[in-house]
């Protein structure tokens, strides 16, 4: 038995998702997103729950989870800061933005601040090349950044 369960309103959302597809397997990624929204990351409990809910093997679900970058395989901070450093952003100063984030947060890429508030990560192209450099904080894009603006954004997150 798995310890994980979706909240009733999210469970209703699963039904709606299932209605979009001709089979249950197709709901795998959207349902994993729902679970991650609630749990913060995809634990083995979540994998087992999704597998049972969609009539899939746990191995299949685990395989999907490990394939995609956006599924967290371990707990993450309350906020996630993604710095895009692919070429268009790098040409406009992404590396400086990234180093600035590391310095301000006192952590390296991939780490979470001690208070659990922020996880710093790098992204491979977020389709924001014309407004580089940019970062994504949780669901929001911040574009045409300077280090001063990065400071203001991070201040709001860690205060």
């Amino acid at each position: 038995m798995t310890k994980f369960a979706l909240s009733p309103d999210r469970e209703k959302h699963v039904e709606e998702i299932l209605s979009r597809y001709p089979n249950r397997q197709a709901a795998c990624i959207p349902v994993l997103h729902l679970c991650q929204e609630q749990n913060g990351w995809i634990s083995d409990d979540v994998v087992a729950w999704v597998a049972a809910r969609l009539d899939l093997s746990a191995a299949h679900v685990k395989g999907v989870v490990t394939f995609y970058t956006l599924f967290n395989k371990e707990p993450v901070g309350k906020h996630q800061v993604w710095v895009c450093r692919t070429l268009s952003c790098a040409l406009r100063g992404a590396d400086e933005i990234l180093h600035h984030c590391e310095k301000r947060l006192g952590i390296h890429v991939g780490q979470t601040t001690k208070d659990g508030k922020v996880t710093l990560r790098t992204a491979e192209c977020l389709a924001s090349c014309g407004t580089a450099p940019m970062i994504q904080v949780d669901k929001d894009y911040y574009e045409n950044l300077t280090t001063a603006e990065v400071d203001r954004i991070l201040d709001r997150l860690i205060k």
Partner: protein
Amino acid sequence: MLRQTTYLTKRYGVPEGWTLPVYERDGGYEQARRALSMPREALVEEMKAANIRGRGGAGFPMGVKWSFMPWPPKPEKPHYLVINADEGEPGTFKDRTIMELDPHAVVEGCIIGCFGIGAHAAYIYVRDELHLSKARLWGAIKEARAKGYLGAKPFGIDYPVEVYVHTGAGAYICGEETSLLNSLEGKRGEPRLKPPFPAQSGAFGMPTTVNNLETIAAVPVALAMGGDAFSKLSDLHDQKDGGCRLYGVSGHVNTPGVFEACVGLTLRELIYDLGGGVKGGELLGVIPGGSSCPILRPDETVNAPDPKSPLHRWHGKNVLDVPMGVETYRALGTMLGTCCAIVLNKNTDIVLAMHNLMRFYRHESCGQCTPCREGSAWLFRILDRMVHGEATMEELDRLHEIADNIMGNTICAFGEGTAMPALGFLRKYRKEFEEHVRTKGKSGTGRLAL
């Protein structure tokens, strides 16, 4: 000749331009209504005449693709329309603007597309990162459904159409059509062997057409104008490369952004007229259409003495003055891709630029084929050593060898997408690479940003 247009970007910057009232004020959904009462053959013929080449990179004629669908559809084998909005190619950011600023054009395109290929459901596959895009698309779908433009009887016509947004979870490879289909089916996004092509066996094993998002958004415009008139907007109408499209420019230019113009814009116009010119000095090179397209040097000239070459008209001219088209760019030894150029100026360290791109490909290789998985990592490791001044001349040559061995040895085009730009960098900037190795990196500027 710079010919900017506003057929696709009419509602960009308009307050609430993404809502139904604004879209309908501009005649929105009239074409979908009309299409549903046209004979299917006439619709497909109109699209063939429009000569819309796929805007996702491969440049396949859209109308021809629609005509590949088995006809008539069998009841036990429903057709599907899948829209590729998994925009993840470095330098490419045009589709996002459509989803955010004009999502109804996508929904209307989907209704017409569904009818054209005999489908009753369309899935728009969007990257999960694009939260605003997803919200705007869902918003448009909801509005259209509330008005009765989607559902069991769109516009009161007995042809059910549903449109859904499906999200990925962060994998560039899912922009490849067969791995996109696997991802849609709830699997790992690994590419499938072709054949069978999606038109025979695509989403859920059923006949499927996969169109790029900009391609489908151009459909209502092309239908309104008439296929032939739309095609003739283009400078390359005679090469069956029609209409207008979105161009992006990023990197070292003064005004990066997305612009709309007729097909046949030149790189020089894109960089200097629309992009406001090169920032901070002279041009070192341009990656023309997303990072998979081999880089062009500004001192290259066209060599096409053969009158049969699609480039013959521009023989002896600078490459920057060749109209950007599917056939012209193929003949130049690069690709048009998504028409989103990345500009590098003279202060850019070319080794660092290639290092940056190869890091991307190493990260994004799905791992299914050994030449791609191992090759992309190996390319990156050598470049990493080169950046740190540790690589030898022998390793520089090995880069060629590794890239050559990826070409043609993988299931999907990701392998070529890695190897071709790598070879482009190495061949066109051989001197710079040699200098870099010889001086242990001291001849490079060590910088990407200005």
